[in-house]
């Protein structure tokens, strides 16, 4: 398994896209830290970057990579290796290299310029988001053999989590404005990893004072060690569910 991961890793690095991605993140974060006044503000801007571009690049890159290495996967399947192992090594190779790029690109500037608990949360969130969206990309890729269709599904998933979901929830909140919605909002944000990540970071910045009663409720839940572990546990669940289901699909289906 280690050997396959290493091979996937080298293959991705030779590809140079990940290098470009690292450089892009690095330039952007250094720029943001030097541009804005306080590190908190830069973290806030970085948060937007992490929640919009990181999922998009992760999901698109992982999907195309999966389809491009189909022949390699077929070759490996002919060898005496279980499909689960092949699939997991592919996943870990892609997700590992992308999150490595993220850690170098965003992590280094954050630790250098604005090392704080919020910065650490931002990094953790970014790594989790990378893993989640690579898992979703693999799910999209195993559902269909057609590359165009697969990328389409992946993009739709990104679109859903980054934009549509918030719209739906806001609509629901508006429609049921007369009811106490605090706990419902909490439950609904847990159903979207992007929202969950955003709230983990936002609650640790001083904008949390704007969030009034709901914010206080969130803070009382997510502010404790237990709550933060719960939030990251939920994010972990968001990795495990798509990756395990796609693994079982991959193990069973006709290549």
């Amino acid at each position: 398994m280690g050997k396959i991961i290493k091979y996937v890793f080298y293959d991705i690095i030779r590809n140079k896209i990940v290098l470009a991605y690292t450089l892009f993140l690095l330039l952007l974060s250094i720029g943001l830290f030097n541009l804005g006044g306080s590190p908190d503000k830069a973290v806030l801007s970085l948060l937007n970057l992490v929640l919009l571009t990181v999922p998009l690049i992760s999901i698109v890159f992982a999907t195309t990579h999966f389809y491009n290495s189909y022949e390699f996967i077929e070759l490996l399947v002919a060898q005496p290796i279980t499909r689960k192992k092949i699939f997991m090594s592919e996943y870990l190779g892609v997700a590992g290299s992308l999150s490595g790029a993220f850690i170098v690109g965003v992590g280094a500037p954050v630790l250098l310029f604005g090392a704080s608990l919020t910065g650490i949360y931002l990094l953790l969130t970014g790594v989790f988001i990378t893993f989640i969206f690579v898992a979703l990309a693999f799910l999209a890729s195993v559902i269909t053999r057609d590359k165009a269709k697969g990328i389409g599904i992946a993009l739709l998933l990104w679109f859903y989590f980054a934009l549509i979901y918030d719209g739906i929830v806001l609509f629901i909140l508006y429609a049921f404005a007369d009811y106490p919605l605090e706990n419902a909002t909490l439950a609904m944000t847990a159903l979207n990893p992007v929202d969950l990540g955003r709230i983990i970071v936002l609650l640790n910045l001083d904008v949390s004072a704007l969030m009034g009663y709901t914010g206080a409720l969130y803070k009382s839940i997510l502010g404790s060690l237990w709550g933060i572990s719960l939030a990251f546990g939920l994010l972990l669940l968001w990795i495990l569910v798509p990756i395990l289901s796609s693994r079982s699909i991959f193990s069973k289906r006709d290549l």
Partner: protein
Amino acid sequence: MKDLNKLYYILCTMVLLLTANVAFGSTLKVCKTCDYTSVKQAVKQAKPGETVLIENGVFQEYGIEITKPLTILGRNNPVIDGNYKGQIFTVLSDNVTIEGLTIKNIATSYRHDDAAIRVVERSNVRILNNTILNTFFGIYLQYSDNCVVKGNVVTGKDVTGLNESALGNAIHLWYCDNVTISNNKVKGHRDGIYLEFVKDSEVKNNLSQHNLRYGLHFMFSDRNVYTHNIFRQNGAGVAVMYTRDIRMEHNTFENNWGAAAYGLLLKDISNSVIHNNTFRRNTTGIYMESSNRLDIQRNNFDHNGWAVRLLSSCSDDVFKLNNFTGNSFDVSTNGDSKLNHFENNYWDKYSGYDLNKDQVGDVPYRPVSLYSMLVERVPPSVMFMRSFMVDMLDNIEKVLPSFIPENLVDEQPLMSKIDHDNDRKLAQIIR
């Protein structure tokens, strides 16, 4: 040589004049080695109009009642330590001056409001340049008029986590007229400066910070002026309630930050003026409820959560020539408050253009965003702050307004930030 002689004579005359002055209204000295070793004793013996001069040292005293016009003067920082036994000075006479003392240690009491200096139903009392440490109430004036409270430093304790009822106010006025409160520094109390039923008074150049509740609290106090004060990191900034004809000018409200904090809380105010103030880093810059006919001009709103929360119970308020920069929400409202007027403000979120280069934007600006309306209506939706959906909705609404209040609009927003010190030229252009 002649010049030097002249100077010498002048100096001599000055010194003589000084001593003559003291000799005129004779002085009772209080110190460890003087005739009087206790302040209480000296105050009792003094005749009306005399001066009690307290030299440096620590005096363990409380319950000093001043029943005749006296000047109590501290020299070289004498300390009067109440030892948590009761009130220290009670002024029961007109024309009393208390100056230059350090007064400390008064116990928190739930039964009576003990103060370092209390003035009861008197006038022309002057409380100057005292340092008051660790007391329940600092300076307490009741039914007194024409008083001056100036240059005092009132310092309480660290208020974090304390209960409001366990703290007193630093400067507390109750039914007083024509009082001047200036150049004081107050912190660590419930309210920094508290005025209730106080008329025609002036509050200026004070610094009020780290108080549990309000930096300055007005209730039923008409025709007051407060200018050039700084209110910083108070639980809820400044509250002005149930009053009219107030002038608030050149004040700074900053860092009043927290889930229930305001820079300035206005409730049932009318006919007042808010000019040239700075609101910086407050959760809510100005919160206005049932406030009518306010003139809000030339203020800076910088990096607040909400710059202005204008409830629909407000009417005839005018916002003119204000700067709104870096606020999360510029204006929010809970209904369609169409009765207020916005004109010639600078909004950093304004994205219009100015074709004829007259410094006034050609497209109107709507300071209320769709999202702020949503948050006002459905508070839980605040959790979606900085979500892309929200940014997108706001931008769409900006292009095609359909939900945000039709009439809450700045028809002539300015293109560049107003420099309030130097805006005469601009004012001419606008006119």
